[in-house]
């Protein structure tokens, strides 16, 4: 029997992370992500893991990178202000190809904003928050069951692609309690941390060597394979280099490592898109309202479908481009002033009608609001 439990989104995030092999968590209290730290403080010692409450979010991000480079799978969790503070360390993790997971339970911003209210204002920050060209993976579930399932995916991607993975949630998702079926053990694939290099005693481990498929060398535990890690531009050995070709080679490899594997990384869900003339694009907690709205509109005989990106980065562009060829209009429903709308507009070469339902008042977009938007778009299409 699958385990049937009542879980809060934040709790599911912590418990799923432990399932994925996370044994080190460093964090700092912040609404609405605190419950993740609280759950970790309670559960990690019981599995031999370690929780520490650091002096700030900068230290938290630094500590999880240190722990990961030493051999433990690690995670931190925060919200807007803390996520801003972590950006430099996220860049360090990208540069040093350190697998780790950074959870951002989004609240209203900018600045202190609305600590107890929901928002989706950090999706572009997740992509571009740290300085310099870099790729990132960001996963955004839309219900508690998905939180549990996709936090495991986040850890797996971190290991496979040796990259920091941003796990986006929002206040609704973090604080919502739902009855969920936990997946069977056999349904959960967990990518382990490689223990040893298999290299002979005197061989030199090159932690920063990509293979010809542009995959990263799996990270090994610190110890026998002594290696050097630096945020400076470096070669395969990890030591600083500085000729123009060295710099270009590293930056392009880091970019290719994720970009060329986008098709394997991308996750999305579709609902009733086969015959859709109107497409609703929504993610995170808004996707649930959108699902309900689509069902309601179908009852009104409107051919509407839902497209839900789960990986926000890389964005599921290939599939969305296909859908943009078939539909007459797209409604992007999101709790910000047009961040993913911008991403969709870049793909909309055919000039399909783009409607934005953006809400920034701290309240969830309701099914009725999306339904109203669908009805309005439907009548506008008919007028054309």
């Amino acid at each position, binding site marked *: 029997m699958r385990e049937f439990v009542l879980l809060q989104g934040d709790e599911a995030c912590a418990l799923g992370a432990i399932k994925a092999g996370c044994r080190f968590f460093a964090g700092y209290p912040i609404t609405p992500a605190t419950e993740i730290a609280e759950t970790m403080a309670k559960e990690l010692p019981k599995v031999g893991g370690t929780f520490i409450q650091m002096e700030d979010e*900068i230290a938290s991000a*630094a*500590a999880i990178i240190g722990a*990961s480079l*030493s051999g433990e799978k690690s995670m931190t969790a925060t919200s807007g202000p803390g996520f801003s503070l972590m950006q430099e360390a996220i860049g*360090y993790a990208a540069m040093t190809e350190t697998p780790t997971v950074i959870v951002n339970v989004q609240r209203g911003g900018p600045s202190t904003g609305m600590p107890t209210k929901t928002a989706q204002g950090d999706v572009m920050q997740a992509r571009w928050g740290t300085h310099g060209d870099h790729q990132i993976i960001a996963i955004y579930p839309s219900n508690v069951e998905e939180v549990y399932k996709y936090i495991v995916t986040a850890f797996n991607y971190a290991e496979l692609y040796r990259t920091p993975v941003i796990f986006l949630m929002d206040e609704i998702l973090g604080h919502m309690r739902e009855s969920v079926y936990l997946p069977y053990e056999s349904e959960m694939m967990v990518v382990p941390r490689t223990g040893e290099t298999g290299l002979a005693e005197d061989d030199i481990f090159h932690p920063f060597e990509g293979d010809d498929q542009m995959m990263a060398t799996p990270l090994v535990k610190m110890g026998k394979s*002594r290696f*050097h890690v630096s945020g400076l531009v470096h070669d395969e050995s990890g030591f600083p280099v500085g000729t123009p070709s060295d710099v270009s080679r590293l930056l392009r490899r880091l970019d290719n490592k994720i970009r060329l594997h986008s098709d394997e990384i991308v996750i999305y869900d579709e609902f009733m898109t086969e015959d859709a003339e109107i497409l609703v694009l929504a993610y995170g907690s808004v996707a649930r309202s959108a699902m309900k709205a689509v069902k309601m509109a179908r009852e009104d005989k409107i051919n509407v479908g839902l497209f839900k990106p789960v990986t926000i980065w890389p964005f599921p562009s290939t599939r969305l481009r296909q859908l943009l060829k078939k539909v007459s209009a797209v409604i992007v429903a999101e709790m910000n002033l047009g961040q993913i709308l911008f991403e969709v507009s870049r793909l909309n070469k055919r000039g399909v009608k783009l409607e934005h339902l953006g809400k920034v008042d701290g309240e969830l977009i309701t099914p009725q609001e999306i339904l109203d938007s669908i009805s309005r778009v439907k009548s506008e299409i008919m007028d054309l």
Partner: protein
Amino acid sequence: MAVSRLTKYLRQDRMPHVWCPGCGNGVIMKAFVDAVDRESLDPDRIAVVSGIGCSSRVTGYLNFNTMHTLHGRAVAFATGVKLARPEFNVIVMGGDGDMMAIGGNHFIHACRRNMDITTIVFNNNIYGMTGGQYSPTTPTEKIASTSPYGNVENSFDIVKVAMAAGATYVARSTVIHYAQAVQFIRNGLKHKGMAVIEIMTNCHTYYGRYNSLSKPQDMLNYFKTNTIQLAKAKTMSPEEIGDKIVAGEFVNVDTETYIDRYEKMREKALAAEGGERE
């Protein structure tokens, strides 16, 4: 070529180093590997973490597990390393700007936690890498590129900060007192808990040049003639000590470390659960 017993601890293929001729950082690097050698530590079980700055480049030359991390954050990275691998000797090395300004918060909290980290602060009273700006340890009235008319700020006494914050081993020496520096680093490596060893070093290129000590030997002579050993300093009045450097072991106490306490708590959590450790 005669090879020193210490060269095996250095990545000789990474030489020459980036430091200026006559820089004291090399002396501290040697004192560290000398201490490692004398304590017969296993190089595979040593992790050295540094931040950003001249002295932080030391990790590139040391043949251990090494991390050259972010400006000011070395202690926080090292905290993660130590908690993930408690069996490791974790050492943080960095400068006065890295450790006391941008990284000051991490430094004091690691002291407070009695985190089992050996922290070696290379104090040259200036930001060298960026070209000689005043640091939190630049004495008042001294010249730096950002205090061209004399520094108006008060300076930190690193030893006092470490003591007040709860470090359980605190010592200070200078690069001219090599044997003492090696001894303090050895003591720090052996110590269970947060060890802070401040070593005064010469940046004649900036600090010295701006303040009439432009040759390495000028600064080394300054350290030699202006250092008072702690035992003697205790017999002197603050006025007599003035701006002289007081060298010695200020704190050396054995108390429970963060790791000790966490381990106990873990057992408690397991017992409450009635479970077994994975």
